């Protein structure tokens, strides 16, 4: 079974330095460098060294950016590498040891700054309003949050921490999704997520936004009291709290434009409804799936929620990428008119459950969807639908269709497969422009205005319902009560169920290791447990890290086999997934001379067969 490894961060990826330096405070000749140091980690660093690092790095950064008329992004030393951000007069630097992939260091710094802006708004204004000490505590908090509690593999992919889906009844996941959906009946609720003990159970938000929201949860969970923090307690007691957070314009638009069935909300619809017709999202599909009635439910509507969220996220990053025809509509071809939620709620648990069982695919595992699709391959209706899609089919689920299409080819023999997938990959390549290195500069620091919004949180023991709501939600007592009471019972029930689940037995080391990364949902499935196997020096982890970097940098790269003395690892990458596989045992003794009987070259077919039972479909 898959085990989400839970580990302490290893030293190799612990950030060795982080600082924010404000150049505007050090203008004159006599101004000491320390005046510009807003925050420095590790805090126990001597002031001399702080000044040295800030002064030298900021100075060199300025000089280089003048020479190249562009801000410095990465600054490498022999022993450390620094991701750099230069914005206005601010200079951020985050340093890790030289072994950490550069792409990862940059990601970490972006996440850190984004987190700060999410909870505090613009950096300049924060420093005008708050003392350095107050904000230093926040930087420290975000930094420790980003570095804590994920395995080396999770760190490599920088993925969301989710509950172990293999261990959880899919019904519970669906229940969580339903709770979120129910909350959305209040028009002031934009989107939400449900977390259990610091792990995602269900989310309606992008992985990036979910990751940000989770910090507040962990902070509250740890009972960190911020004396002058923005938290407000409410009349609902200690289990409800809220804080102001800041979204970028694009984040906000994505949330507002998502066509939740606003007509069926019990008040006015949002003005953005038609502005972004391409957006769709999980909750809607769930409702359609769940309540479209058993009559209309057939193989043709077997789109998993995962599929829809996939297209949602993709279209978020670049609409044009997955809709070559450019004419896709949000209307689900199978369920053009979703029915009112209220009505469906009355339909009772039993019938709901039956439906869920037949249609629900785990949020976490694409594999569940994949294998299901495969098993349904016989009836062909899905594939017929998809066969013309790469030519510009109108329903906008191109990414998913490609997966489905691949699934269909499973029955073909290997030789044909190679050729076919070669041709198929042509299409894939075109769609993989989003795999370029992430845009060097996140777009939400001071440049685009940040919009204040409220993060509402309802805790039931280890379970947390977190909602992004319009700011006046807090003053709208009826709405608040409605959301609170409508979800309370379900949350209690969900909590009890989740608590009752015994943690999965740590996976016995099987004859192989794999890691499957879903880049759309930012989730990871692996059978590699924690230390010592998950340590960075583990051959599989090393190879995975290296291959992931190559996949990220070379958009045309689809498959790789690499062999060292320690291990032969196979990696494959598609638009939405990366999968890594290593087979134990077998003779590693080889001369390294090309040999088609060499076991390393059978890894792709082994991976294909072995991983099916984990719900990973590599066909």
């Amino acid at each position: 079974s898959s085990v989400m490894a839970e580990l302490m961060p290893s030293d190799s990826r612990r950030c060795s330095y982080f600082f924010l330096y404000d150049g505007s405070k050090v203008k004159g000749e006599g101004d000491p460098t320390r005046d510009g140091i807003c925050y420095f980690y590790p805090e126990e660093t001597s002031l001399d060294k702080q000044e040295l690092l800030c002064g030298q790095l900021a100075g060199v950064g300025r000089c280089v950016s003048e020479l190249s008329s562009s801000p410095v992004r990465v600054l490498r030393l022999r022993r450390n590498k620094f991701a750099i951000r230069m914005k206005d007069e601010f200079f951020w630097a985050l340093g890790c040891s030289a072994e950490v992939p550069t792409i990862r260091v940059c990601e970490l710094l972006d996440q850190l700054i984004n987190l700060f802006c999410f909870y505090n708004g613009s950096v300049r204004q924060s420093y005008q309003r708050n003392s350095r000490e107050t904000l230093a505590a926040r930087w420290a908090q975000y930094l420790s949050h980003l570095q804590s509690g994920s395995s080396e593999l999770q760190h490599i992919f920088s993925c969301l921490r989710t509950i172990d889906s293999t261990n959880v009844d899919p019904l519970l996941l669906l229940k969580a999704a339903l709770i979120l959906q129910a909350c959305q009946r209040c028009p002031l609720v934009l989107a939400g997520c449900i977390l259990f003990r610091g792990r995602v159970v269900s989310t309606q938000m992008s992985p990036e936004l979910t990751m940000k929201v989770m910090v507040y949860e962990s902070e509250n969970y740890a009972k960190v009291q911020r004396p002058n923090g923005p938290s407000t307690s409410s009349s609902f007691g200690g289990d409800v709290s809220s804080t102001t957070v800041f979204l970028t314009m694009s984040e906000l638009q994505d949330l507002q434009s998502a066509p939740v069935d606003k007509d069926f909300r019990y008040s006015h619809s949002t003005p953005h409804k038609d502005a972004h017709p391409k957006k769709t999202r999980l909750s809607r599909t769930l409702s359609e799936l769940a309540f479209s009635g058993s009559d209309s439910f057939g193989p043709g509507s077997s789109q998993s929620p995962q599929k829809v969220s996939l297209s949602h996220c993709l279209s978020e990053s670049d609409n044009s990428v997955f809709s070559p025809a450019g004419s896709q509509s949000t209307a689900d071809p199978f369920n053009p008119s979703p029915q009112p939620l209220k009505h469906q709620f009355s339909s009772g648990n039993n019938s709901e459950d039956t439906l869920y069982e037949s249609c629900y695919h785990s949020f976490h595992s694409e594999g569940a969807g994949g294998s299901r699709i495969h098993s349904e391959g016989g009836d062909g209706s899905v594939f017929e639908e998809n066969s013309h899609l790469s030519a510009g089919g109108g329903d906008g689920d191109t990414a998913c269709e490609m997966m489905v299409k691949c699934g269909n080819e499973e029955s073909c023999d290997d030789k044909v497969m190679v050729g076919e997938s070669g041709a198929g990959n042509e299409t894939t390549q075109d769609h993989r422009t989003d795999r370029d290195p992430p845009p060097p500069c996140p777009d939400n620091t001071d440049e685009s205005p940040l919009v204040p919004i409220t993060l509402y949180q309802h805790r039931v023991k280890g379970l947390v319902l977190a909602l992004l709501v319009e700011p006046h939600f807090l003053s709208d007592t009826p709405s608040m009560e409605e959301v609170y009471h409508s979800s309370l019972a379900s949350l209690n029930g969900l909590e009890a169920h989740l608590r009752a689940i015994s943690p999965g037995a740590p996976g016995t080391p099987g004859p192989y290791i794999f890691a499957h990364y879903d880049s759309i949902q930012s989730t990871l499935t692996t059978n590699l447990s924690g230390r010592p196997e998950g340590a960075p020096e583990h051959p599989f982890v090393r190879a995975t890290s290296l291959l992931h970097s190559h996949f990220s940098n070379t958009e045309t790269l689809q498959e790789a086999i690499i062999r060292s003395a320690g291990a032969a690892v196979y990696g494959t990458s598609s638009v939405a997934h990366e999968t890594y596989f290593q087979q134990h045992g077998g003779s590693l003794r080889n001369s390294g001379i090309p040999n088609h009987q060499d076991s390393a070259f059978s890894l792709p077919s082994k991976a294909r067969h072995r991983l099916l039972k984990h719900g990973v479909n590599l066909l």
Partner: protein
Amino acid sequence: MKCFLIASESAEVLFYWTDPEFQQNVQEKYGASQEEGQGLPAFEDSVSTLFAPIIISCSTMVDRLSDSYTSFTTENNHIYVLQKFDECLYIAVNGDGEESENDMRRKVYVMKKLIEVLFGMVTLSSNLLRKELRPQDTAQRVRLWKHLQSLLETYSHLRDNDQSFLVEAVERLIHPTLCEQCIEFLERRLVQQLNSSVERAGEEVLHAFILVHTKLLAFYSTRSASRLPTSDLLTLIIMAQSMYPSNADLDDPVPEDIESTSGSGPESFYTPEPSPTDRDSSSSDKPVRESTPVFEFMDPDIQMAEDSLQTLEVPPPDPSTPRRVFLEISGKDRPYPMMPHSMYCLPLWPGITLVLLTKIPTSALAISVYKILDAFDQLEKRLSESQEGSAAPRGTPNIHDIRGKLDKLIKTLVTSEVQSAQLQNVWTEFKNRAFARGGSGFNKDLIPWCKNMKTQLCGIYRQYFLIDSGPADIPQRLSPALQERAQTMAQEKLMDWKDFLLVKSKRNITMVSYLEDFPGLVHFICVDRFSDQMIAPSLSIAERTTSELGKGPVAQFIKNKVWNLVSTMRCFLRKGYSTVTLRDGDFYFCYFLWFENENGYKLEAGDIPILPDDSAPIGMLAWDYYRKLLRYKSKNHQGEVVKCYELLTVHLGVIPTEIILQHCRQLASKLWEPSRNPLL
């Protein structure tokens, strides 16, 4: 937009090269203030001003954090690569995306190698090297920098266009008969005549080779010569190309010529052993090479006899003047790096060059100086490692041998015209401190004196080997008449072959001959890392010729893929992966590295060292990576000759993997089968 800069710690420009875009960029930033005729110093000043903060910050980081910058990347993907060698900081800048960080670091290391070949042991003293790289006299500086700029440009061009410089191995021209004839010609006629002539002024030809563009037609070494290391040979090819650049477009042949002249079929690429001597010197009983000791000279203020620097002369523009090059020789017990040689580059026709490498009469002195220098270096290391306060046990064993040798050397120097007073003074002082009863003995106090001694020795070496002998001396070189005779002999020998050779060098091996046996194979490169030779089908991307790869853009695309593959495979090799296959777009790439013993028996792959991220680039020019790899592998195979091979292939992605792997297997055995004694 590219720039290359060498700077001293005090931000003094020791060398720079820029492309027009970078120059324009700088001028726009600082206003085109320079007047006509003064372009160079003014531009040099702005470069210095621009980079000064970076250079100074770099020193500060080293001093206070013992760490130094290695690279910067900006958001618009400008890359700056920095590398410190002793007190010289090398900076490469790229703003046009044409070079990766790895390419740029390689360029930095290659530049360092070029400077070592040009300046020899003087590079071991930063203080002396600084003065050497930046002559006081402006005209002389311009000339030197132009020379270095040309070498850098030549290297960059070769790296981007020549497969042998891509993988850093020598490519032979494949024509067994002609090859054999030429070696015989070099051995029996040319070198014999030269070495028996009285006009050779004490010089002795050690190596002679004929280059057709960058490809080796024939290479001959005399019996007394030691093996010429590949890194040195590649550097010499860069120098020859820089002197007589080949214009690829002009002498590109018309397709008809190829049909009539080049043999077809795979058998044509098997050639006999190129030269018996070459073989012998590379055989097993050769001692394993030691790593070159690295000297460090920390004290920049060592007093040098200033007047000795005045004797620095601008080399006369006489074409018959040889280039002084410093190459590694293998002594009986150990290798001696940076030993002085003279290089004669005799153009036969455009694109075809005869190169002679001679031993100079005073070269024995270089070995003595090197031995003494090395002894002081080891002593210094020993002293700095020794416990604070406690005296090291009477220095190192060989410092006492050295004492006698150095006394003897100084006696020799006194009789010559070389200024050695300063060396004598320092040596006397050293002896007083180290050996005398009242002296402080061998402890840390002696370290500055070790450094000082090394600088003095480098100074002596410089006077002896780098500066042209005074006008009173008889010129130490093959007489112009002798050179001319050599040139004429070679021209006569190759007259009938000249056109064929020029064509052949462009079509050394063609993919056509492989297509039947290996359908779907697009390209391959094989490298024998034991003899450092490579073979690969020609990749002609010239617009007006059609190769098997098609015309212009398609060929260019595949060429880029091959170049990227080599760089990717180096990334994996660096991390210890010796087998790599990649499915990339429409292509399937394979890379294999394996070891064999002398009988062709495949050795188990085993582990390959994992290199730290800041280590020198993998290759032969920048750093003898493969030489070290072979030595590493030999540890487990005592008494056996370990050979190392690499194979890179590019297949069409539609070919089944199994077939691709069979192709690789067949290629590997076909090209390297020991019984057939292939071309390499």
